[in-house]
């Protein structure tokens, strides 16, 4: 079964429970934690790559605990607060999603053309291109 990416949101009262352990131990799933923001007694989020026969049962288990589970579509966004329109990303982007608007030389991002290759995320000197789940 193909791995699937899911985003979990859980409230403060279950943030201290070993849910990932249960997914591995009881449902025999291969879990890759892509992103996690978990603090004791606070609401948390986690992005997982889940792989295994019992993925659906595992997700039902999470839901039974009250965890909100959503499948995830990864997106790249241009953080306009951070982007200074230098242009260094525009010839790295393979799909033309990042381009310079002439004559003003402003860097624009057309998310419809983005293929989520992540090249800009590291090439941007200001770290203005962000992965958004």
């Amino acid at each position, binding site marked *: 079964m193909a791995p699937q990416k899911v985003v979990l949101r859980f409230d403060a009262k279950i943030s201290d429970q070993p849910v990932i352990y249960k997914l591995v131990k009881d449902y025999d799933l291969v879990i890759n934690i892509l992103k996690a923001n978990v603090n004791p007694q606070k609401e948390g989020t986690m992005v997982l790559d889940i792989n295994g026969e019992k993925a659906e049962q595992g997700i039902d288990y999470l839901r039974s605990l009250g965890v909100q589970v959503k499948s995830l579509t990864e997106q790249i966004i241009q953080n306009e607060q951070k982007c*200074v329109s*230098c242009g260094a990303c*525009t010839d790295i982007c393979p799909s033309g999603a990042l381009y310079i608007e002439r004559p003003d030389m402003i860097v624009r991002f057309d998310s419809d053309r983005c293929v989520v290759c992540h090249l800009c995320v590291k090439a941007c000197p*200001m770290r203005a291109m962000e992965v958004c789940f």
Partner: protein
Amino acid sequence: MAVEKTYQEINARIKAGKAVVVTAEELVSMVKEKGVERAASEVDVVTTGTFGPMCSSGAFLSFGHAKPRIKMHKVWLNNVPAYTGIAAVDAYIGATEVREDDPLNSDHPGEFRYGGGHVIQDLVARKKVMLKATGYGTDCYPRKEIETEITIDDINEAILFNPRNAYQNYNCAINLSAKTIYTYLGVLKPHMGNAHFSTSGQLSPLLKDPMFRTIGIGTRIFLGGGIGYVAWNGTQHFPGRNTGEDGTDYGFAGGTLSVIGDLKQMSPRWLVGTSMIGYGATMTVGLGIPIPILNEEICRYAAVGDDELYAPIVDYSEDYPNFKSSSLGFISYAQLKSGKININGKEVPTAPVSSYPRAREIAATLKTWIKKGDFLLSEPVQLLANADSGIVANSLKG
């Protein structure tokens, strides 16, 4: 009659709200339309701007004393080491320093996510920064360790002092090798897959006063969103002219400035921590210089447009790293800004590393400050060496 103006006359007009101020971009079209003589008589001040990654930047910080006192021997700001071999509680945080635990290029290309430039940006953003220092303990400075949060407002002095900024001109970088390379001019694709450049061209301060007729020690400037001054020539100040293999003159290059200003009045919009993948951390600095139009010669130089300003094309895979002189030719900023250039019959996409829109904003801001009468021009205490000085660069043996 030849135009001759003095700083005093121009400042009197600024104070009276009557000065004619234009950006360098506006002057280019004005001179094309009206000619140099009329433009020189009408215009008092031309404003310039540049906003690009500028290594050789940093800040002196004086923290104030703790109780009991410590003579700092090692200092870290958000885990980025600062140099404290100056005095007990003084340090210099350099833009290219990285965190103690930075993996550098061990997993190539490294990301260099946070360095001294980011610390400076966090300070001017008035964020809390963790200061850690150790000392060896002396009779008068007994303390051996301190760890405390600071903000820029808590410390006594924060002085931006950049030993080399505002490069007069810069290379257009390409990669002739078969693999992608990661440089201080960005990611360069194999087989001349792209070309990067980093100058604001017709807005660039030192391309607009290329013979240093007005820019010198004490010149008041836009620096990091606030007011700064030219402190000295920059390090590696080798003012000269670019000449093609056939003897063609491709204009001025090689001048640099060292600049200084009170960091506390600057802004995180204009001092931006910067991470060049595979290369390192640095800081992008906003800098703009007003040029008084004292005579026609100064006006003529300031009116040169992107079509008459040239960058040398340099290979960063072999020639630059091995310090070999490169002869791939010159290319105008007008062509570089168009998005494609032609090198040896191949069409190569181009991209800038310095922001033209931000350079334009700096020139416009400086124009507004001067027109409002808030910003007077300062006559340099001493002018800097120019292309006639014959300065030759030394290189290291070994």
